[in-house]
């Protein structure tokens, strides 16, 4: 049975279902209990699980992140709520030097089964310190898995998988999508990591899009359809691990690709995926692989400026047309 629920509700359900299943799970973060987070994603959980498992902390991100790492090493399975993705910079040592490396540095003897839930996405008019999409930072660090749900369905299935994983997993929700509804089965389901979803089939160009950019790519594909251009849309769903084979086999079919992600374009996810395509499907490419990330500026406040910084269906479609027509030519 399927019904339509919001992404916010899907996250809430995933946490509640997993906490009912496993008493080792607790959730820790700022204003997660009665407040249910500023986005009200967690409303109702403290009523069911009590303040011992839904734990409000002081505004001490490195502190509660460190506590979660230690708890994860000693029999607990914490879910850390980081109110904004921008606060990742505050927890970097605990996440990247401690959580990510403990299993390796101990020769496999210690494990850190924790989930860091946070968010990404601009255009909420929140300016440079509450609008960033920083998943590339953590995807760069060996030992961390990174999931990027693109709808309520993905949010629930990926979060449940993350909670059951024995490694540190960072999962980024698109904060603009908390109220977007999608069909979500009533029955329990998990979405395995490392399996991309082909959301739309096409044969002339592949649009690889993550998280917030998946809807942008699907709309771009509609625009292209009117021009008689057939676009395939792929959502990797997790970037660590990355389902390279689904992406490569699509590009081998279409010969063209655009990678779209809301992180900054330079040194980011788009560059990584584009480069894997170029390396591994080179002789199948009939056009340069295009990266489309967020503009390489701090996210501006003014709507007139902020909207320029993020790829849109129109800009994606325009690049796709140039690619299909053989008019993308950047070389000197």
């Amino acid at each position, binding site marked *: 049975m399927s019904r339509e629920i919001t992404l916010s509700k899907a996250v809430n359900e995933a946490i509640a279902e997993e906490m009912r299943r496993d008493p080792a799970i607790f959730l820790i973060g700022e204003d997660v209990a009665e407040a249910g987070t500023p986005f009200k994603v967690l409303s109702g959980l403290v009523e069911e699980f009590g303040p011992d498992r839904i734990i409000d902390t002081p505004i001490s991100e490195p502190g509660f992140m460190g506590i979660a790492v230690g708890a994860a090493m000693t029999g607990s399975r914490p879910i850390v709520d980081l109110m904004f993705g921008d606060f990742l910079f505050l927890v970097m040592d605990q996440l990247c030097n401690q959580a990510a490396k403990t299993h390796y540095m101990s020769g496999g003897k210690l494990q850190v089964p924790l989930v860091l839930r946070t968010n990404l996405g601009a255009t909420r008019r929140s300016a440079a310190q509450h609008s960033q999409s920083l998943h590339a930072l953590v995807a760069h660090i060996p030992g961390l898995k990174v999931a990027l749900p693109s709808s309520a369905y993905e949010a629930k299935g990926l979060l449940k998988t993350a909670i059951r994983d024995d490694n540190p997993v960072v999962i980024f929700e698109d904060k603009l999508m908390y109220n977007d509804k999608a069909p979500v089965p009533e029955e329990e389901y998990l979405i395995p990591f490392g399996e991309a979803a082909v959301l739309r089939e096409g044969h002339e160009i592949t649009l690889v899009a993550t998280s917030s950019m998946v809807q942008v790519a699907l709309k771009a594909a509609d625009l292209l359809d009117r021009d008689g251009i057939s676009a395939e849309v792929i959502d990797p769903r997790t970037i660590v691990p990355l389902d390279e084979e689904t992406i490569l086999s699509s590009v081998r079919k279409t010969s063209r690709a655009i990678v779209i992600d809301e992180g900054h374009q330079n040194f980011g996810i788009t560059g990584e995926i584009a480069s894997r395509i170029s390396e591994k499907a080179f002789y199948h*490419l009939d*056009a340069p692989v295009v990266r489309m990330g967020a503009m390489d500026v701090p996210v501006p406040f003014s709507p007139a400026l902020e909207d320029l910084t993020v790829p849109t269906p129109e800009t994606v479609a325009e690049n796709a047309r140039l690619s299909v027509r*053989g008019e993308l030519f950047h070389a000197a």
Partner: protein
Amino acid sequence: MPHEVIMPALGMAQETGLILAWRKAPGDAVKIGDVLMEVETDKAAMEVEAQAEGYLADIRAREGENVPVGNVIAVIADEPGAVAAREEATPADAPSDEQPPAQQDGNEVIMPALGMAQDTGLLVAWHKQPGDAVAADDVLLEVETDKSVMEVQAGHEGYVAELRAEAGENVPVGDVIAVISAEKPEVPVKRNTSKKKDAKPEQQVTPASPKNPETSRPAPKRAASQPPTGDRILASPKAKRLAAERGLDLARLATDGHRQPYHVADLDRLSAVPAQPSTATANAFDHVEARVDRSGYDAFRLWLAGESQIDDLAVWSAFAIATLRAAIQSESRRMVAQAHRPLRRQSVRFCDPDLSGLSAIEASQDDLAPDLILRDLTGSAVTKAHFGAPAVPAISISDSNGTFEIILEFPAGMLEPETALAIVHEMAARLEEPLRHLL
């Protein structure tokens, strides 16, 4: 049990230590913690304490010597009597065979470890030249490491006997870069040994060190310059791959004036571009013409027709194959003619038509590659047509005003001129007087 005194690793990234002074003499009693010697490293002198009790014996490294970390420099023996005979062998001028064979005798100056985790130092400049006199605290060179330039002192008094590295070179820490001799050298040397590892004195490479001396060597200079790319064709990787698979030449699109870069869609256009001669001879052809009166053939045909149905294509194919066979002296091989009557869209194949009776020649149904093409253009105004170089010799026969016109075309060089002339001559002769064929 005698205890070996080793050159200790004292600094952060140190590979050798300079013995400044021995504080104990051979035969002296030593206790744990007694200062044995002074060692210079990280630009500071340090006291090294004895780690065992006993009597100092067998000093193996003299003052002023730079010793690789981990080397045994002395022994602490249990008995005072154990003062080794070696003592005699270690005065100030130790025999040179105890030293790694330096090209010039003297104190070696090594690339020092100056930074936290430094594998190499960039030699910025020499402040002394071979033959120069130096004092120990003279600046000998400048080294760049950890993003700052530092002056390095000579450390020894004497003369620069040898410089082994050049300014601009990245030298692994611990490599000998200069030699300072006590006496003014007769022939001071400046050379670069960095590319000849075997030529330099043995350097202690500790097994524990994660550094690989080979990988930290300067990269060989690039070959003079890259060859110019010339008229490279810009095309997508897939277009290039498919063109190669299909035997298509993307350069033809360029000569045809199509704009680069090329994509897969352009390959269709390429298939439509006519082949162009890429060399003077590849697509060239030769041809030979002849004319004969046709009355002789017409009479022969009338005579023959009294006996059976006659097909000119079959008869002429027989004539043509016979002349070709004779000209190229291929008596036994099977030969095939592909005969066309283009204006009537007739095409028929004959296998060895010259070996049958003229009235008994039968068409072959086998899919055989032709050795010769025969075109019957008679009964039309067409006297001559050229369709590019044929793959095999082609004979066209047309007629006008009671005359057969015979044209032989063939790819340039396929037939010798004498052979081609012989074929046309003989073909013409048979058409003029067909009885020749029967003889």
